[in-house]
């Protein structure tokens, strides 16, 4: 099972990970990223590059399958306006034993951060909005998997 979903509706970990526990393995690992209240942020807004987004996420899943013994993997990502406290992204992986699923999950979210064409804008209570700058710490984490 290889699942990529881009959603302009609220997402949930339960729906995003559905089926991963039914693949005959002994492990399902997941990561959920949540819109965070960073100094007065009320919502974030996500823009993406339709077409390239889906293909780049599926390519990450395909690469994870070549690196680890996986039974399934899923990436579900929100676009549009996401209120603080709501999930932005859910990444999950299933495997026979835990190490493969755990490492694949870290790989998928680390590489998504630097490879997938999404852009995040923060909206503040006073009406200001600011595009988020890419972080060098994200580059460092992503390059661990090179």
């Amino acid at each position, binding site marked *: 099972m290889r699942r990529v979903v881009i959603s302009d509706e609220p997402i949930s970990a339960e729906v995003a990970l559905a089926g991963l526990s039914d693949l005959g393995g002994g492990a399902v690992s997941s990561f959920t990223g949540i819109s965070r209240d960073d100094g007065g942020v009320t919502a974030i807004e996500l823009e993406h590059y339709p077409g*390239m987004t889906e293909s780049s996420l599926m390519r990450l899943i395909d690469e994870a399958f070549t690196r680890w013994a996986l039974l399934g993997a899923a990436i579900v*990502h929100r676009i549009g306006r996401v209120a603080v406290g709501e999930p932005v992204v859910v990444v999950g992986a299933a495997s026979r034993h835990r190490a493969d699923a755990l490492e694949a999950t870290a790989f998928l979210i680390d590489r*998504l951060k630097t490879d997938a064409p999404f852009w995040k804008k923060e909206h503040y209570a006073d009406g200001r909005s600011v595009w988020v700058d890419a972080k060098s710490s994200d580059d460092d984490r992503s390059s661990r998997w090179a």
Partner: protein
Amino acid sequence: MRLVYFAAVREAIGVASETCDLPTHVRTIDDMIDLLAGQSPGHALAFQDKARLRFALDQAMVPLDAALCDAHELAIFPPVTGG
């Protein structure tokens, strides 16, 4: 060639996409950025710092010095910030 812009680049230029005929001297993305920067104050603002830009040719990430060849679509955008 179709040009597509995202995030702060799109906002600075004021449109999400446009088309452009390629002059013969324009061979790489770098050449193309120099050409586009002269089109309007918004283009100049969007493209003032090439080191802060990323590029995709026909939806595959490429560096600034990549040749345009016969690509149909060039996307220009800031470093990505998803997740």
